[in-house]
């Protein structure tokens, strides 16, 4: 085959088995759809993109590093592009930096900032295409305060209880919530209490929380199934408070298990498919390609990352195989400099962090940041209600069925 029509191998490390397999399947779908669309338009200067998937199973450091090495050594991938892999703690950056290829992921980890800034020359190709998990904390506190200050919700007190899972992701979010609470007039009355996860047993910790009588209960663990059990056990004898569950509750698995108990729950994602024309059209294409059981709002992550990479590689004049540092530095330069509006908001890399900047918690300009979207499960038969932030919200907050309702007031 002529070199000019030879496929460009693109690696993707996705958890196709294990607790995040549901997300992994969507990340795979997103890559497939993006490559199909790109190839239909001629690929990269006539070369088709060829996605190669490596299963990261439980996403431990060992599994993710093995996947990265397999993709680089066996398949000579020019880039690794995927959704998230929690647990590798950036171990995979080492073989990737040694090979000098591009790595775009949605690991949502604060430590990405530290690793990249510790040696920007070495980690030039490592990009985090979503904001660090840290931003979930202050973003959530601002959201609560917005509900309170606009009179949509009258909290019975200023008390917040925080439960964390045992992954670094959950712990960082819980710490960040606790750190920013006081600035907005909230008091942490419980936690952050770290619970060993995965688990489906939450009754003990719920009882501990009950004793602190909070106005808000936040659980920063993120496995959809575990959170569904949490919510079922919570509504057995609910506390009169708002319930916020971390990212996993956006997944269909959550509502499938929690059923009626899920109505009223608030959940957020710093990577969420928008409901504008662009988002809707993508959702239609995605559902048409992968069926009504697929979740476009998760598949959009790897989809956007792949498209963004393809544009950057084209701007740079081509992609680079392992060892072609010079070409890949050009691709990295294009990725860093480009403000790329995609189906879930804007990918704009912070020049030092090489991570996406979130809106509205860091930038006030929606065109320069990826929106931190807040949803509420209001009707099991309908999609999640997008209740914040402006200007993306399409619905309003409603009181969860287990809560006593103060008279809503407006300022």
């Amino acid at each position, binding site marked *: 085959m002529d070199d000019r029509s030879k496929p460009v191998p693109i690696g993707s490390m996705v958890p196709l088995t294990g607790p995040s397999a549901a997300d992994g399947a969507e990340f795979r779908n997103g890559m497939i759809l993006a490559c199909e669309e790109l190839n239909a338009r001629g690929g990269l200067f006539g070369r088709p993109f060829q996605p190669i998937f490596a299963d990261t199973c*439980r996403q*431990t*450091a*060992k*599994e993710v*590093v093995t996947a990265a090495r397999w993709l680089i050594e066996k398949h000579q991938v020019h880039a690794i592009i995927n959704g998230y892999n929690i*647990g*590798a*703690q*950036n*171990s995979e*950056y*080492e073989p990737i930096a040694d090979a000098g290829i591009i790595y775009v992921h949605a690991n949502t980890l*604060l*430590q990405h*900032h*530290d*690793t990249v800034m*510790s040696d920007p020359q070495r980690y030039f190709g490592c990009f985090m295409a979503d904001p*660090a998990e*840290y931003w979930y*904390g*202050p973003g959530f*506190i*601002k959201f609560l*305060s*917005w509900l*309170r*200050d606009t009179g949509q919700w009258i909290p019975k007190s*200023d008390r917040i209880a925080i439960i964390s899972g*045992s*992954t*670094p992701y959950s*712990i*960082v979010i819980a*710490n*960040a919530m606790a*750190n*920013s609470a*006081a*600035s*907005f*007039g909230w008091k942490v009355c419980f936690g952050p209490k*770290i619970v*060993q996860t995965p688990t489906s047993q939450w009754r003990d910790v719920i009882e501990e929380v009950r004793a602190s009588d909070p106005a808000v209960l936040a659980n920063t663990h993120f496995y959809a199934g575990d959170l569904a059990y949490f919510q079922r056990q919570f509504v057995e004898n609910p506390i009169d408070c708002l319930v916020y569950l971390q990212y996993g509750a956006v997944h269909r698995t959550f509502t499938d298990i929690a059923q009626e108990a899920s109505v009223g729950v608030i959940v957020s994602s710093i990577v969420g498919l928008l409901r504008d024309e662009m988002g809707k059209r993508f959702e239609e294409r995605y559902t048409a390609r992968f069926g009504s059981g697929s979740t476009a709002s998760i598949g959009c992550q790897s989809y956007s990352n792949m498209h963004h990479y393809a544009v950057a590689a084209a701007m740079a004049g081509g992609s680079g195989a392992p060892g072609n540092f010079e070409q890949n530095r050009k691709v990295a330069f294009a990725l860093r400099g480009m403000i790329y509006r995609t189906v879930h908001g804007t990918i704009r890399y912070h020049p030092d962090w090489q991570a996406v900047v979130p809106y*509205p*918690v*860091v930038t*006030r300009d929606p065109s320069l940041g990826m929106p931190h979207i807040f949803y509420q499960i209001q009707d099991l038969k309908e999609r999640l209600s997008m209740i914040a*932030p*402006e200007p993306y919200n399409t619905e309003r907050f409603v009181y969860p069925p287990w809560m006593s309702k103060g008279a809503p007031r407006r*300022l």
Partner: protein
Amino acid sequence: MRDASDRHSVNDARLAAIWAGLDATDDGIFVWSAERVLVFINEGFRRNWDLPVCAGMNYEEYASLIAHSQEWMIPGGPDERLQNTLNNFGVATDADYECASGHIVHVRQRPSAQGGMVVTFTDVTAIKRNERELREAKEAAEAMDEAKSRFLRAANHDLRQPLASLKILIYSCVREQDDEKRAEMLHAMGVATSIMEDLLGALLQIGQLDAGRVQPRITSFQLSELFERLHIQFNHQASEKGLRLRFVAPSKTVATDRALLERILSNFVGNAIRFTELGGVLVGCRKEGHGLRINVIDTGRGIRQEDFGRIFEEFYRVTDNNQIQKKGLGLGLNIAKRLADLLELPIGLRSEVGSGSTFSVWVPLGNIWHSNISAEVDISETVAGEFAGIPMLLIEDDDFLRESMTQLLRRWGIDVHAAANEDEALELVADGEIVPRMIIADYNLEVRTGPDVIAAIRAATGEETPAIIVTADAEPRVIAGIREAGIPVLIKPVSPPRLRVMMHNLLFEPDLLKSADI
């Protein structure tokens, strides 16, 4: 009749040279005949001004064109402009006009001997800009000079008294033998110094305001943090006077300059404490329109109605018969007022003699989504990383490695306590002040091994503290020996991600420890 376009018909070489010379100048030139007909326009006019005039045009046509032109900003309505232009034919005039393009043109009109006139058009934009800049610079320099003079007058006026006291106190203190009296004098010296410090600070602020150096930066923020800072700043002062100082922080976002609002409020609170002898000071908010009114309420002596206007003036002091207390400087409220004016925040005052006063400032509500989490937007793992604040004991006998490892761990937010050997490590945990949640130890530590030192620390603290051994000795027998002791091991040079994974698993997910061994 000459226009620049028909120059080629001129045979007279000298005349041609004159036309060419007139065309070369950048100034525009018109020559009007006594019959009020435009007989000459030079190329300079065509190059620089976009007006549809041509040779042969009569003056009435030209006057109408000028009067209705949107290109030149000439005062008065079109009719008035037309009449003025017509009346001015043949009259010597000089005037500057601004063009729509932003240029300034000087138009000079002079009568000719034959009853006509010459009009020249000169672009003076650069000259005028320089003149304006010079004028502004001069005004700024004069304002600065005035500010400096005021500063010196005020310094002379207000620094003299505490300086004189200080001089006497120092003189007396040197000779004083009685410890108690010496202590009293030192206290008085402290008071005099703090008065001077306050005064210089206030004068500096006034100076900055006078020089126009204070530039507001409007942001959205929560008042609660600002109130907390004020509480810390003034609590001691209020307690010393036996006053209650209370802040009721609202859970609202406001939009203004955070630092300048703090200076306004700190002047209000400082003033309230200074002029209150009994009771206390309360700082709270009330919603008013689309904003908050921040009230500083005291139970002090109050202010007479007739003083309300003057109280915000520079160096104004309410007549004060109480000589015991530290005098006000008469600058605080002036600063507060001027800062509030700069921020366009209305200030309020309610007061009754004998009952107390309420100073207030109104601030607009801000958008909570736009408010900063704290003054510093940048984040790092030291703020909220998973290891933030976790105390750790590091035992490494190599100075360079100990230092570099300490730096790495601190970047992750860990509270590192480093020791070179067993003795130093035991000393660190001896009094119980440091209770490490993790130990990282080198394997070869002078006379002891890492596992021995870990055992000694665990024995000293009575805790089975999780630990990691790092070693440059990759001998399988050594590694196996460490693992047999139930301690995970990392080979030097330690990979930061591996260390991080191992630390995380030891602290939070011990079940995953085996799979972390990559």
